[in-house]
């Protein structure tokens, strides 16, 4: 279980996170959504240890990981797929997957994980994780690195970006399989309806704070509500379109 307590982050005099409190239980898929610039990616970076909070606490299974660096967090069980994947000159897809798995993967294992993200292993495994891959392709490799980690808490920042419909269906299935393991927590930052529709819980992050939050189907219905008068959420099952 991941607990976030009164997490705050200030940069260049601007308060980006204004006291976030969240509990992410095991075996749940939590979708973080909300307007761009609201603080979702910053929150994800804080959880992964890529950025340090100004104050507040992050606990993983009751252990305070706030002061842990990214390596220690990864070893503690945090996985993080970057919104903007990093390119590496000279490192192949196979190398990157091996680094993520912490071992030399078999051909079968490489094929399996690449299939989960909609890539044919034979075509991609020996290509460089660099300019030889398109934005969508490199995004899928990024997701694959986290799928391989078997992390206690797996964070995916806008995994849908650049992914075609067919691959997206595979990806949704991969997330569902991860959730079915029950001992993993998934946090997915997304604006995508398909992802929001499978979330156990949806948390709206806006203006550096937790806004609307609740069970996935309830919040999803509210988000779909077309009634401008209920911008804060009408609270009715299925929205207030009836």
């Amino acid at each position, binding site marked *: 279980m991941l607990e976030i307590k009164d997490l705050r982050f200030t940069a260049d005099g601007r308060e980006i996170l204004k006291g976030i409190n969240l509990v992410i239980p095991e075996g749940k898929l939590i979708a973080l959504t909300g307007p761009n610039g609201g603080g979702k990616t910053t929150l994800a970076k804080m959880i*992964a*240890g*890529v950025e340090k909070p100004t104050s507040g606490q992050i606990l993983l299974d009751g252990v305070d990981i706030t002061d842990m*660096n*990214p*390596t220690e*967090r*990864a*070893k503690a069980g*945090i*996985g*993080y797929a*970057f919104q903007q*994947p*990093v390119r*590496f*000159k*000279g*490192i*192949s897809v196979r*190398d990157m997957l091996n*680094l*993520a798995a*912490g071992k030399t993967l078999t051909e079968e294992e490489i094929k399996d994980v690449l299939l989960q993200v909609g890539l044919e292993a034979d075509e991609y495994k020996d290509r460089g994780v660099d300019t030889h891959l398109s934005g969508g392709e490199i995004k899928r490799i990024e997701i694959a*690195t986290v799928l391989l*980690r078997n992390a206690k808490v797996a964070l995916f920042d806008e995994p849908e970006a650049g992914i075609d419909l067919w691959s997206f269906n595979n990806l949704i299935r991969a997330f569902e399989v991860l959730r079915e393991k029950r001992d993993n927590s998934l946090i997915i930052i997304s604006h995508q309806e398909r992802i929001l529709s499978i979330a156990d819980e949806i948390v709206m992050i806006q203006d550096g704070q937790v806004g609307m939050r609740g069970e996935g189907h309830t919040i999803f219905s509210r988000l779909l509500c077309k009634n401008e008068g209920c911008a804060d959420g009408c609270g009715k099952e299925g929205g207030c379109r009836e």
Partner: protein
Amino acid sequence: MSNIDKTTADLLDIVTDVDGKAFDPEKFAGAFNIRSNCTSLGRKSTENIKIETKTDNPGLDIRIAPGTKGEDVYIPACVTKAGIDDLVYNDFFVGEGADVTIIAGCGIHTETGEEARHSGIHRFFCGKNSRVLYLEKHVGTGNSAAKKVIDPQTEVFLEEGAYLEIDTSQLGGVCRSDRKTRGTVGKNATLVIKERLLTDGDDVATTDFEIEMNGEGGGINLMSRSVAQGDSYQKYHSSIIGNAMCTGHSECDAILSDNGKVDAIPQLIANCKDASLIHEAAIGKIAGEQILKLRTLGLTEEEAEKAIIDGFLK
């Protein structure tokens, strides 16, 4: 071969390792000559590849018969004693239509603080429609205070339709290196050069390419990747001279670490309006986000840097 001592064997393992397979002279089917401390420890010619001692200079004439296909030539050189200054001239005469792999390389190991040097002067005469893959690794091991110098000079002459790919790397431990490559590329011939350099401490490495594109339809692709660590210094100069309708591409990427310094001076000279020449260059430290990404996979900062550099130089 019983006359190969352990130090030489270790160096051979490093410089002639191809895809994880170390050279084994007892089992090797191709032609070879193993040079150590200025003498030949063993040599074998085959029906199609003759290796002969030069009569005018120290070194070898390697004659590959026209039409030879799929054969390998191993000609590594090692220096395992301080105070040695090994100069060798090797000429490769590649017959028309031949298709071979040449594995060279040089390792220097010294235990004392004295200087040891190897200068390999290689010339490639690539016949019409021949195809050659030339693999070369350089390394220095042993006493890090000892000055190990490797100065490779390469000249290439590509006839019509010939293809030569030079894959050369300096793996580390070489204090001084002065690499010069000169050549001419004929009609519809292609030259590919992949160079990788790693320097550390107070190593100095200079690289100087000058290739004349004389034949219509010729092409060159020159790729250099280097890492300068410690207080090391590298100087890179490349000159592609387009004298005919041809294509030329050069790419120079360098990673700086610690106080490493790199000068890159790429030069394109088009003496023909149909010469199409491109150069790309990038020098900088390892991107912080690359380190961060690998750290989120559980690597320490040091492991991440090593993985990035190993990949870059692979």
